[in-house]
């Protein structure tokens, strides 16, 4: 279980967010379509994906949001609150890839009394290529 | 090969209950109807269903099995069932051949379903088009949270050794 509480005071700039990995099997690709409800053919149809220049079906933005959201709260525990997530699209994450998300804290600040951190999150594939460089803002509980 | 002593002793035994991972819900009914292209208003049209004899949305009766499919992650621990203990030497591949469903009570959003599976019979080794095997007949009895039997599924599967 990921029920630990991570306090704002216990993190600093540079604190690492441990990696989480998923294998993008065909199974998970289809699971992603059904769970996100995004049925655009690029996300499940190998022929459509090939014709669009991809090596296979690529996961949707919503899938990556879910994956990065998980990466953050696996680290922060359930008392951490994802406030903002920016996800620039770069390299597609396709069927057959194994993707790993990890990150680090880049800034620690207070906003309207809320204790927050900004984080940089990176998704890399099995070839070591960074496919997504995302930014997240997370609210953490304070000991104060 | 014939049935073993252990196989024969399992006939007539019941499994522990299998619980549905989700309550019956309108969203899964709707997603099912999307894939089947089933427009029956009892399943998805609140207005219509409210005025019907059911007084509200019901699940397609044929969704019985769907509710109790095991979750995909984290991998569930399966309850004991007699079928898993069958030895049936020499056969290793399953194929479903026949399935009977009986529907007794409407299943509604919010219901919590479970079933128990009984091993009814196992045939002697038989020759079929695809290989030699045993026909295994089981009955799954589905209950709701009020312990009412809502339906039953009688299933025959062939466990066989595929032809070379």
């Amino acid at each position, binding site marked *: *279980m*990921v*029920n630990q509480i991570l306090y704002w005071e216990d993190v600093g700039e540079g604190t690492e967010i441990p990696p*989480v990995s*998923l294998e993008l099997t065909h199974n*998970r690709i289809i*699971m*992603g379509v*059904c*769970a*996100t*409800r*995004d*049925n655009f053919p690029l996300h499940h149809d190998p022929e459509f994906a090939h014709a669009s220049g991809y090596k296979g079906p690529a996961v949707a*933005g*919503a*899938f990556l*949001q*879910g*994956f*990065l*959201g*998980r990466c953050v*709260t*696996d680290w922060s525990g*359930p*008392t951490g*609150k*994802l*406030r*903002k*997530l*920016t*996800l*620039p*699209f770069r390299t597609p994450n396709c069927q057959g890839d194994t993707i790993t998300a990890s990150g680090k804290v880049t800034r620690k600040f207070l906003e309207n009394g809320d204790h927050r951190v900004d984080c940089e999150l990176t998704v890399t594939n099995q070839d070591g290529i960074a496919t997504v460089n995302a930014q997240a803002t997370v609210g953490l509980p304070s000991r104060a | 090969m014939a049935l073993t002593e252990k196989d024969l002793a399992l006939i007539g035994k019941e499994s522990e209950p299998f619980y549905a*991972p*989700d*309550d019956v*819900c*309108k*969203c*899964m009914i*709707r*997603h099912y*109807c*999307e*894939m089947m*292209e089933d*427009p029956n208003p009892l399943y998805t049209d609140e207005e219509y269903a409210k005025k019907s004899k059911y007084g509200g949305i019901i699940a397609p009766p044929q969704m019985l099995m769907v509710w109790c499919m095991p*979750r*995909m*992650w*984290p991998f569930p621990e399966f309850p004991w069932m007699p079928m898993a203990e069958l030895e049936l030497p020499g056969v290793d591949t399953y194929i479903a051949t026949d399935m009977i469903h009986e529907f007794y009570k409407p299943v509604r959003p919010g219901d919590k379903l479970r079933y128990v599976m009984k091993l009814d019979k196992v045939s002697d080794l038989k020759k079929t088009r695809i290989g030699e095997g045993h026909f295994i007949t089981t009955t799954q009895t589905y209950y709701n949270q009020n312990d009412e039997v809502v339906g039953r599924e009688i299933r025959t599967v062939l466990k066989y050794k595929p032809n070379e």
Partner: protein
Amino acid sequence: MTTDELPPEVQQYIGRLSSFMEGPDEVNKPMIRHWCEMVEDANPLYTDEEYAKNSEYGGIISPPTMLTTWVYPRWWPPLPLDEMDPAIGPAQLDVPLGDVPFFAASSITGEYLLPMRPGDKIRYQTELHSISPFKKIRIGAGHFVTTIHYYYNQRDELVGTTEFVLFRYRMEE
């Protein structure tokens, strides 16, 4: 289209708001659970009743990142054309930007303001937020078109926003 000034027929699109589109399903526990299966998310706020009940939320909440999922249009029956609002989605492609036949998703940003709980009905509205001046980037030259979805619950509370940036471009030698 080589100056930074957008012509008036393009500018009139900026700020345009669509009507509301309601999600086909209420927020619900089975879809939350299926989402967690997808990314193997064990956060107990999403699936552990006991834990969630004793948390500050008092019960299960949806992963905030599920915002877009709650409002995806149904898959069947096909939506009648007159129920579709032309200002949604295609708006980004409708804007008369000249010879920019290609498009590529550039980024998506979610802001998560309030928890969504089982039973909530989520609807959204899209604003065509901005259109950049003509720019050259690695893949070609064109305009960034930014739309923002605003998501509300049944109490008219803004639960979150997603900002979607689309690059409409042409190839450059």
